[in-house]
């Protein structure tokens, strides 16, 4: 058993070594085949890039070549223009060599660092463009490089985005009418907690609380809009009405008419026949009729 185990470990190690050697051979072979582009070729590439992107800049101090894309709209959302900035020194060092900078950023509501569904911190997640971009940069095909980045920025892949465009502006749907409503125009019903648009939200006349159309009610007495919390049952008939239309927990119908002292007949007290009559004051006495 021990010998079998050692053999399988040896086979595994040899296979791993074989893979590493093959990878090394491939890398050396690619390097030997690769030739640096000529000055003339690079010059033509720069001319071609300038023709493709009129907003084209070479910054000799920063060692960058930059182009600006047109306005980018994806799924009806304006993301603005982007500058694609290629760092020549980084390209020579074979490190990540370009940035995608939003010039008028419309950042995702949920992420400040996302200026595009496929751009985070000025870095493009290349997806399908990865290998064509590598090949273009290796060969010095600068115009193809800028074109591929531009086409990637002009395309939306909903299945693999840092932030979905559906949530870009933090839009949600009104639970009453189904219209899209942004965060700043959104109301929440205090009864059912559903999100509503401005038109489907109403304030309670008594507490100013928000309620959706489905939850707002009217007081049967004054007909004013009232939220469910402000409509309380009458202590007698149990019909719910607003606080203004209730007195001593009774609705207007059930509450007795208010008493009026002026119209109330004077009260009399009947004393027993044998009651001792005592005067309250001199000359005054209460005498039974």
């Amino acid at each position, binding site marked *: 058993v021990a010998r079998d185990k050692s053999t399988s470990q040896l086979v595994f190690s040899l296979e791993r070594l074989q893979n590493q050697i093959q990878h090394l051979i491939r890398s050396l072979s690619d390097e030997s085949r690769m030739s640096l582009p000529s000055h003339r070729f690079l010059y033509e590439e720069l001319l071609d890039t300038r023709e493709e992107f009129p907003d084209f800049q070479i910054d000799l101090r920063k060692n960058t070549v930059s182009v600006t894309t047109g306005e980018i709209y994806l799924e009806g959302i304006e993301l603005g223009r982007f500058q694609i900035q290629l760092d020549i020194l980084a390209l020579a060092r074979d490190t990540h060599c370009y940035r995608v900078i939003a010039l008028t950023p419309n950042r995702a509501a949920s992420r400040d660092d996302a200026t595009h569904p496929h751009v985070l911190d000025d870095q*493009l997640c290349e997806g399908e*463009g990865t290998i*064509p971009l590598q090949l273009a940069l290796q060969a010095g095909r600068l115009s193809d490089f800028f074109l591929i980045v531009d086409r990637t920025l002009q*395309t939306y892949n909903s299945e693999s985005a840092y932030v979905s465009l559906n949530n870009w502006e933090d839009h949600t749907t009104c639970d009453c009418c189904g219209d899209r409503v942004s965060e700043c125009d959104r109301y929440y019903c205090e009864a059912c907690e559903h999100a509503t648009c401005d038109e489907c939200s109403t304030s309670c006349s008594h507490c100013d609380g928000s309620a959706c159309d489905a939850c707002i009610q009217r007081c049967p007495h004054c007909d004013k809009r009232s939220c469910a919390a402000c409509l309380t049952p009458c202590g007698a008939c149990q019909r719910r009405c607003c606080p203004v239309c209730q007195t001593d927990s009774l609705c207007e119908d059930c509450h007795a008419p208010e008493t009026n002292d002026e119209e109330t007949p004077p009260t009399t007290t009947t004393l027993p026949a044998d009651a001792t009559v005592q005067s309250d004051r001199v000359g005054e006495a209460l005498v039974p009729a």
Partner: protein
Amino acid sequence: VKILYINNDGAGFADHIDIGEGTTVSQLFSKRVEHGQPSDYLIRVNRQPAAADQVLREGDRVSFTPVKIEGA
């Protein structure tokens, strides 16, 4: 006829290839991009937009770049 053929789609391709005499841009596209539609690509010959019936010549540089490239 030897041309430089560049395909900026998928795995990418950039190399010199031999094509038959009188091959047009449209014929090259059909042969090289079997499942694609020309309208889905930016097609350039010698860095300029090209007509479908343009005949390719020795030393031409032909590039096909997808209009839409999905990021991740």
